[in-house]
C-alpha cells in the first residue's frame, strides 16, 4: 500500500513539473508576441498617419492611391497576407539579392508577421485618424493657413496633435484586435504564444490547461495595453477637447434622477 501511494504521488509530482515546464515554455512566447504587436502597431502608425492625411488633404491621385491601399489591405485575410509575404514577396527578395550580390539572406517568419500585421493595421489606423481629422472643425486648418502656415505645417502642428489625441480610444481598440490577430502568426512558426502552445499540446496533450493559459496570457496583454493607453489618454487630455468635452456633458446629462 505504501508503495502504491508513493508511486502515485510521485506520478502526480512528475505530471506537475511537466506541466509547469511546458507552461513556462508557453509563457516565454509572451516576449515574441509583445515584440510582434509593438512592431506591427508602430509600422501601422508610421504608414497609417500619412495615409490618413493623404486621404483628407491630398491631391486627387494621392487620394486614389490611398483608397486602393486601404481597400486592398482591409479586403484580404491576414492569413493570406502572411503567406503572400513570406512565401511570395520574401522569396523574390531573397533570390534577387542572391542574383545581385551573391549573398544569401534569409528573412524570418517573425519579420513577415510584423510586416503583414503592420500593413493591415496601417489600413485600419488610417481610417481611425481620418475620422478624427474630419471631426475637427474646418476652421482650425483655415486659421492656421491664415496665419501663414503651409499646408503640411498646419497638418503637423495644428491638425495632428488634436487628431491623435482624439484617436487614442479607437487606437486601443485596434491594439486589442491586432493582438489577437497576431496569434495567426503561428502558422509560419514564429515562436509566439500560440505557436508554443500548439507545440506543447502536441507532446503533452494537456489541451485544456495549456490553451486556457494561452488565453489568459492574451487576456493579460490586452488588459495591460488598454490600461497603458488609457493612462496616456488621461495624461494628454486637454480641457474641452474631444472626450473631455463628452465627459463634461455626461455629468450634466446623466444625473440619476434625470433618468426617471
Amino acid at each position, binding site marked *: 500500500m505504501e508503495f502504491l501511494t508513493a508511486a502515485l504521488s510521485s506520478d502526480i509530482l512528475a505530471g506537475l513539473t511537466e506541466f509547469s515546464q511546458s507552461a513556462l515554455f508557453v509563457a516565454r512566447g509572451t516576449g515574441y508576441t509583445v515584440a510582434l504587436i509593438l512592431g506591427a502597431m508602430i509600422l501601422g502608425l508610421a504608414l497609417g498617419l500619412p495615409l490618413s492625411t493623404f486621404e483628407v488633404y491630398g491631391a486627387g491621385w494621392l487620394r486614389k492611391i490611398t483608397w486602393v491601399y486601404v481597400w486592398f489591405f482591409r479586403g484580404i485575410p491576414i492569413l493570406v497576407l502572411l503567406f503572400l509575404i513570406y512565401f511570395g514577396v520574401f522569396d523574390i527578395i531573397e533570390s534577387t539579392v542572391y542574383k545581385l550580390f551573391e549573398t544569401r539572406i534569409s528573412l524570418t517568419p517573425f519579420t513577415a508577421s510584423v510586416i503583414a500585421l503592420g500593413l493591415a493595421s496601417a489600413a485600419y489606423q488610417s481610417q481611425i485618424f481620418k475620422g478624427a481629422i474630419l471631426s475637427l472643425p474646418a*476652421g482650425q486648418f483655415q*486659421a492656421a*493657413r491664415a496665419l*501663414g502656415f503651409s499646408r503640411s505645417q498646419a497638418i503637423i502642428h495644428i491638425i495632428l*496633435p488634436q487628431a491623435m489625441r482624439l484617436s487614442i480610444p479607437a487606437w486601443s481598440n485596434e491594439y486589442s484586435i491586432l493582438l489577437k490577430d497576431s496569434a495567426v502568426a503561428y502558422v509560419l512558426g514564429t515562436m509566439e504564444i500560440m505557436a508554443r502552445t500548439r507545440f506543447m499540446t502536441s507532446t503533452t496533450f494537456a489541451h485544456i490547461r495549456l490553451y486556457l493559459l494561452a488565453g489568459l496570457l492574451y487576456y493579460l496583454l490586452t488588459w495591460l495595453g488598454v490600461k497603458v493607453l488609457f493612462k496616456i489618454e488621461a495624461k494628454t487630455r486637454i480641457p474641452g*477637447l474631444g472626450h473631455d468635452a463628452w465627459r463634461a456633458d455626461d455629468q450634466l446629462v446623466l444625473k440619476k434622477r434625470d433618468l426617471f
Partner: protein
Amino acid sequence: MSAQPLLEVSHVSRIIDGKTILDDVSLSLGRGELKVIIGPSGGGKSTLLQCVNFLQPPDSGDVFLDGQSAREMSRQNICAFRQKIGMIFQDFNLFDHLCARDNVAIALQKVKGQKKALARQRAMAELERVGLVEQAHLYPSQLSGGQKQRVSLARALAMDPMVMLLDEPTSALDPELIGEVLNVIAQLSRSGMTMLMVTHQIGFARHLTKEIIFMEAGRVVETGPPELLEGGPEGGRAAAFCAKLAEVTGR
C-alpha cells in the same frame, strides 16, 4: 495719405459650382484706414475677405498688398503674404489643443521660426495688450467668447500684420461680451492699424469709419460715408438694410 493704397482689391470674382459668389468686386484701403462692409448674409462678404488673403483664390481679378500682386506670387510667397494679413473669424478658430499663450506663440515659432522663449515672451506681451495676461495658461474651452476673440486678436497681432481682416468678430458673442472686443478693435484702429471689417454693429461702425461698403448678391452696391446708412427705408439700399436691422434690435 500716400497715393498708393496699402491694400487694393481689383475686380475680384469668385464662382463656386457655377454660382457667382463674388462679382467684379473692387475696393482699396489706405494706410491706417478702417472700412466696414455691411450687407445681408449670403452676400459674399466672408468670401470676399477670404479672397483677399487668398484662402480662396479668386477666379479672376487680383489683390495688391503694398503694390505687390498676390496672383503672381509663388506658393511660398503666398504664405508670407498671408502672414502680413491678420484674420479674425466669427467663431474665433482658436487652436483647441493649445493654451492662450501658445495659441499666440505657435505661429511665431513654426511660421516665423522664432525661439520658443522669445515667441512666448512676445505672446505674453500681446496678451497684455488685450488684457488677458492672467488667462494665458487657460485652454480655449475655459475662456469666455469675448476672451477667445481677444486671444485671436492677439494671435493675429503677434505676426505684425500690415492689414487686419475681421469677419463679423462679434456675431458669435453674448451681448454683454461684445463691448470688450469692440474696445480692442477701436483701440487698434486709433493706433493706426489698417482694417477691413465685416460687421452688423452699425453704431460702432458709424463711429470709427469714414467709409461704408454695402454688399449684396456678390456685388458692391453702395459705398460712401456712414451717413449712407441714414434715411430709413426710403433711403438707399444700405439705409433700408439698416432700418431692417434696427427693427430687429430696436436701435
